[in-house]
């Protein structure tokens, strides 16, 4: 399956190196020590090759540079070469700042909220397969694990907003919980489509499915991918759905009263969760570490990281370009638009799967299914939008032009023709 060998110096599969280290420890020390050393090696490796570079240089520096590019400005460019040390400088600044606590706040909870916010983020990466043998915990129900754990930060954000005892914070807290409850439903239904289609809840198995069929799930389940992207950006508070932190409306939402490194933890972990969602999406929908055979020459973990960052780039892009929806519109979108589509899609996928199993069709069928599903997605989105009364052309988007000043010009009779 892979050209990667078992030599420790073969960096295409970093698990070789850790295995050699662990075997060495096993020979000289009691065997329990390996259990303690293994997570440390995994953590350090993940930290060095993924978390730190992603967090600092894609999440903070890259995001600000790209947003700056979108906004016709330069972004950070003063600290260090090309402003590369800006994230470090920011961290030092945040550490120095005083973390204020309002007098009327619930101090214990306000202190605990950032901690509760950080812990699940670390857990999320445990089930992500970075390579064929590079996964911390091969949990059989890894997909459910991911869904469950990614629901925890919402509680932390709620605690943060509630304990601040500020009206804006409370608004942010209520909004984030409402949003999470709404968008969890289509999200889980769509991931259920993936589970039904691949017949597995284990993330490495889903990657293996995509590698064997030579077709990524984004093509087989395009609707699921779209809904996942929308739902996850709603849960992560990324623009256009960042209503829990909506700066122009409720100042900073649940973070209004936070400052210093307490705020910094929230900020950093927001990026962390976005990266986790991107990693999850590239595992589920973009083929994980597989790349049509390229993984035999290029280290699979590099392919995986590249895909993750590519997905994260889309997050940055939407953040820089789209306005924000109102809270009731966003809720309505989840319940009225995404949920029926998700249910219909689940039904279709189940039928396909059943037919696939009953008729004993070969793996080539996935291409037919991909075609069916792509057409279905496009038709379903269009028709359902029309059915819900989406008429973008009902009122012209250009103003009418008149030559003479006068009174009210009725709409039925636009003088000058109205462009």
């Amino acid at each position, binding site marked *: 399956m892979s050209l990667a060998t078992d030599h420790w110096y073969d960096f295409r599969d970093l698990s070789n190196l850790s295995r050699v280290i662990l075997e060495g420890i096993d020979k000289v020390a009691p065997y329990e020590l390996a259990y303690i050393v293994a997570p440390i090696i995994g953590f350090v490796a993940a930290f060095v090759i993924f978390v730190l570079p992603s967090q600092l240089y894609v999440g903070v520096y890259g995001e600000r540079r790209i*947003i700056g590019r*979108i*906004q*016709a*400005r330069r972004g950070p460019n003063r600290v260090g070469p090309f402003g590369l040390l800006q994230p470090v400088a920011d961290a030092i600044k945040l550490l120095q700042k005083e973390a204020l606590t309002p007098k009327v706040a619930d101090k214990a909870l306000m202190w605990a909220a950032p901690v509760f916010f950080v812990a699940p983020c670390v857990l999320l990466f445990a089930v992500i397969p970075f390579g064929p043998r590079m996964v911390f915990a091969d949990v059989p129900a890894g997909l459910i694990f991911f869904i469950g754990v990614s629901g925890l930060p919402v509680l932390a954000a709620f605690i943060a907003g509630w304990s601040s005892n500020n*009206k*804006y914070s409370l*608004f942010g807290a209520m909004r984030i919980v409402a949003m999470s409850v709404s968008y969890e439903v289509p999200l889980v239904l769509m991931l259920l489509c993936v589970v039904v289609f691949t017949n597995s809840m284990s993330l490495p198995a889903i990657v293996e499915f995509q590698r064997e069929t030579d077709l990524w799930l984004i093509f087989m389940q395009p609707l699921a991918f779209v809904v996942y992207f929308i739902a996850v950006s709603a849960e992560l508070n990324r*623009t*256009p759905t*960042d*209503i829990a932190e*909506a*700066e*122009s*409306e*409720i*100042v900073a939402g649940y973070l209004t009263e936070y400052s210093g490194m307490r705020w910094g933890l929230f900020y950093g972990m927001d990026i962390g969760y976005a990266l986790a969602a991107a990693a999850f999406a590239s595992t589920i929908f973009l083929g994980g570490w597989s790349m049509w055979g390229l993984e035999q020459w290029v280290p699979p973990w590099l392919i995986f990281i590249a895909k993750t960052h590519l997905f994260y780039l889309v997050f940055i892009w939407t*953040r*820089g*370009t*789209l*306005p*924000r*929806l*109102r*809270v*009731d*519109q966003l809720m309505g979108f989840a319940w009225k638009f995404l949920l029926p589509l998700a249910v219909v899609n689940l039904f279709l996928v189940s039928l396909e799967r059943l037919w696939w199993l009953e008729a004993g069709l070969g793996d080539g069928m996935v291409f037919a299914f991909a075609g069916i599903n792509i057409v279905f997605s496009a038709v379903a989105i269009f028709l359902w939008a029309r059915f819900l009364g989406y008429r*973008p052309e009902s*009122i*012209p*988007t*250009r*103003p*009418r*032009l*008149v*030559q*003479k*000043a*006068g*009174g*009210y*010009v*009725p*709409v039925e009779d636009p003088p*000058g023709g109205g462009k």
Partner: protein
Amino acid sequence: MSEIVQSEPFVMNIGPQHPSTHGVFRVKATVDGEQVVDAEMVIGYLHRSMEKLAEERTYTQNIPFTDRTDYLSSMSNNLGYCLAVEKLAGIDVPPRGQAIRVIMAELQRLASHCMGAGAFANDTGAWQTPIMWFMREREKILDIFELTSGARLTCNYMRIGGVAFEIPEDFEEQVRALIGPMRETIADGEGLLSGNEIFLVRARNVAVIPPELAINASLSGPMLRGSGIAWDIRKADPYCGYEQYDFEIPIGYQGDAYDRFIVRLEEMRQSLRIIEQALDGLPGGPHSTEVPLSLRPPAGEAYARIESPRGELGYYLVSDEGPSPYRFHIRPPSLINLSVLKEMTVGGSIADAIVALGSIDIVVGEIDR
């Protein structure tokens, strides 16, 4: 059943320190959940007593004050005040001075609408991108102002009887160089925002001002035109020779926030047309008439109004033949446009209230004076 499941309304202070109040302005909003049930405006945080101070200074000394009322459109404010004094004293402005005034006022309208449209997009949540694009063009206009008058924001360029200085040699070249990119930016902004469904659902049918309300509340500028009323002082009561230029009044359909936004964008296009025409037919001659420094207009009163970027900007002056005005009053369009904020916000959500406020395009310096 709804008596059981009920929430208590509570008061929420939006401002005076809030990212979306465009200055130190405060709305005491009573909200029931996300819905605004009452809104009370609190103004006066930026009051500097300009109208009273102006009674102690000569007519020429008052011009810098007008810079500081609507600080996003100082040229228009200078112009309105100078027109009022000229009306009071019966001073004629040479054609070249008038044409320069028109160019400056229209450039100022562009700069101000850049800010207004960008800030409105910011309020709908288009995070900083449109405003930065518009700012890029606004910077070029401010560069031209700096080139001409030496200042970027508070220009103090108009004088009673004309303008302060002759325009520099490369002025025309610079303004013409600005027109093309400005058109592109307007088209970009329009394409990005009016073609965007999220923007449409945020701004369409939000904060609707019916035409009757718009007239009864004495609104002016884009607020009035957005409600479908063709009214522009440049057409209705021309000053500075606006009657020679060919331009159109953009009007909206139903008076919602989107209409006001798109009217502003279209006004920018029309301003560019006026600037082109004014540059083409820029007459020669003096840029200003000689006016005595200690001007003592005959006793009487005068009211001059112009179409400032925000609406009808009026200056009312009473002279008692002294060197300074006996009474100096400004009709600030922002203040009067703001008076319908309660009608616009009550019943909508907090997010809509922010969009409503953004669509008025207020400048707090002008409201509080």
